[in-house]
């Protein structure tokens, strides 16, 4: 899908804050309410806007620690990949699972209440999974999302 300048401005605004009415958005972009609505609809239909995500302050709701894990599988083959993916995806503390190519096979984003809680998740739930080999942990200190090339 090709975007014009107004689409780009609309995406930039929505990717920061999706809680505005089409009227408010229209005012910012110099569009009528129906025209704004049509543009949002078109971006959704084309799959460019894939959904909406709630923003919560993780620390204030009790999740003070985020850790990224690089995991290497000890045994490979289609079955072990599928088994591993299914098992890690079912763990609620694991927020994202990416299959990657490079030093590791998977990158996992894990949240925990504190480091002791993280250790519990790592030892009891992740290290016990069949096929898990090398694991590297990096504790997240800060994070910044950028608007991207729009």
């Amino acid at each position, binding site marked *: 899908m090709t975007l014009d300048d107004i689409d780009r401005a609309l995406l930039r605004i929505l990717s920061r*804050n*999706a809680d505005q009415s089409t009227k408010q958005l229209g005012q910012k972009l110099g569009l009528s309410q129906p025209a704004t609505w049509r543009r949002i609809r078109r971006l959704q239909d084309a799959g460019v806007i894939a959904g909406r995500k709630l923003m919560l302050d993780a620390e204030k709701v009790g999740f003070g620690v985020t850790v990224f894990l690089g995991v290497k599988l000890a045994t490979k083959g289609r079955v072990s990949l599928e088994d591993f993916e299914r098992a890690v995806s079912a763990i609620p503390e694991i927020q994202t699972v990416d299959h990657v190519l490079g030093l590791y096979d998977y990158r996992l984003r894990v949240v925990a209440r504190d480091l002791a809680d993280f250790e519990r998740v790592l030892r009891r739930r992740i290290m016990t999974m069949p096929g898990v080999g090398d694991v590297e942990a990096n504790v997240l200190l800060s994070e910044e999302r*950028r608007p991207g090339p729009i």
Partner: protein
Amino acid sequence: MLDDIDRHLLRLLQSDPSRGVPDLAQAVGGTPARVSRRLDRLRDAGIFLGSHAVINWRALGYDVAVSLRITLDKTVARAFDDFIQAARSVPEVIEIQTFLGRVDVRLSVIARDLPDYQRIYRDDILTLPHIADIEALMTVASVKSDESLPL
């Protein structure tokens, strides 16, 4: 802090941020006015920060996603600040994270295809200041990406 009803509300909103107050009220068994007040309180406390749209970069033609794990030259006092400031000016960098561990900084980079990635990597990434080492992980597939908190 949070009670069970707050957590229930946030769980419902996490799975679908477009749910309206009347619908939420019905789900948690309260009045819309009460639910509104709770949401206002969570907002005022800086817990509930609103919602944002998720952009699917593939739909815009960005088929390549690479995670760059970067070690910085820590003998330079301002290494982190200089590096992050410069990384912000690369449009294809969609995430900047700093870590405690073997990796100092991670950049999420998107590109239209491999030649485009090569151009970004050579011209815009390798020219960033104070890099000691870079490892690249290319994303093959996102298996889980909801980023929900287990409330």
